[in-house]
């Protein structure tokens, strides 16, 4: 892999981590850790500017480094963000590989899958009381996904040509 790609991807990871941490301090739905998921924009950008392998790498790195740096570390809540993040990254990667859908739709699906992953993890590992919040979180993840997808899409349109390996 070229130096430019390595550096670019590293910067992507860093940005994703920072965004992740900043987001965690902004409550959106009281009683839950629901986030808009701006960090997912990075995953989407990498998936469509480079490819699925790169997206997985950047995504997983973001989750782990974000976990290391977050105040609660690798405690019980980490499992939630890990599973949620994993589900959403897998959704992006799988849909990217199949390559039959546009970025915004993919973003919406991955946003919903993030919530699904979080709720499933919480239900099995901690308490299934969180199922109460599942419907509202699922509903909100739809516009959130559309927003982040739209932003990623805009970014890629504006920066067409920057990423040499693959064209959008």
């Amino acid at each position: 892999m070229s130096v430019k790609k390595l550096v670019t991807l590293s910067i992507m990871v860093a940005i994703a981590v920072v965004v992740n941490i900043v987001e965690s301090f902004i409550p959106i739905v009281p009683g839950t850790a629901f986030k808009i998921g701006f960090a997912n924009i990075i995953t989407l950008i990498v998936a469509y500017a480079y490819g699925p392998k790169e997206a997985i790498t950047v995504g997983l790195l973001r989750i782990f480094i974000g976990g290391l740096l977050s105040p609660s570390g690798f405690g019980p809540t980490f499992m939630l963000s890990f599973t949620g993040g994993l589900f959403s990254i897998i959704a992006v990667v799988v849909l990217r590989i199949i390559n039959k859908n546009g970025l915004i739709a993919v973003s919406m699906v991955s946003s919903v899958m993030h919530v699904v992953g979080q709720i499933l993890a919480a239900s099995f590992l901690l308490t299934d009381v969180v199922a109460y919040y599942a419907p509202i979180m699922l509903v909100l993840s739809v516009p959130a996904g559309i927003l982040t997808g739209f932003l990623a899409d805009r970014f890629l349109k504006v920066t067409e040509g920057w990423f040499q390996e693959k064209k959008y």
Partner: protein
Amino acid sequence: MKIQQQKLTKKIIIFIITITLSVGLFGCKDDKKGEVSAIFDDLMGTSISVRLYDATQEDIDEIERIYALYSQLTTNFDRNLFDSNSEYYDLENIYTINLNRGIKPVTVRKELFDLIQYALNLVEQTNRYFNIGIGKAIDIWKEVIESRDLYLDKEITEAEYNNVINNLATLGQVDLSKVILDENNLTVYIEDSNVKLDLGAIAKGYATQLVVDYLESQNITDYMINAGNSNVALGEHPENRPYRIGLTDALGYYKNGFIGIASLNNRHIVTSGNYEQFVTYDGVIYHHIISPDDYLPKAYYTSVILIGDNAGLLDAFSTAVYSMPVELAIDFLETNELDYILYLQENNQILTNLPETEFEISEVKVN
């Protein structure tokens, strides 16, 4: 490129499946060991649910055996109507004893003999407010009450009411000395055909007591037996807390549909009420618990709830108390050292001698 894509896709799919499976296995929580339960739908004329913690299927089978036996022994129906596959199909029972009134003694199994003897003792103890010989009067009321079984409207006609009253008038007082028990031969002979045995008011409780005796002999401490929602036997609760029993408020006068919630362990609780088997006539409720004195149901209570250590005794006593005026009832219960909850018809008052830790009275609905 395509092969690489396929490989990657495959890996991802396997990954997802692995995670799903492991999370799934993780989520499977272990159920309590040795919890067995059963519901018997056609024994003792009602639905009996049994829940045992730390017991085996054999214990359930034994409990079923006890209820099946006493169901057959105490029924007033021709045993030929019973399931001929039942091991107790052939037994002489209350029906056969009644059939042979004024004719001849009937030899019965010791279990039935003991039960009748026990019941006769309770008749004495309750000053005949509990009376096992008023079967003819019970039948007269049963006929009209069951005729309304499937109807929401329980009102009977003037003709039906008069019919009941006239039929009751032809009955004399019941003389239980005409019931002759021979302990050596285990026979029961009713000399006077005016006396008809009916054990409905004690059979369920008596059988339940035997079930509890069995459980205690097997060192099974955590259990709940619910016979028809009117007879409940409670052991310990596996979560180390009292059982919470919601007591129905048939009148809807109190909040949440309960007159209160009892918190109990290791006791029996028996209820009698006027709101399940009854008919109405001219604004009055005629229910199935009739006073042995005048063969008419009394209107002192909506519910009588007794708590104590012997299910058979409680069953009989709750029937007896239902026909007693309030002061007499309280006197009787205190003398017999029983705990009670009385839901009076007068002002819908609730009287109890249970402490607040064992019985929480509901608040009155404000509307």
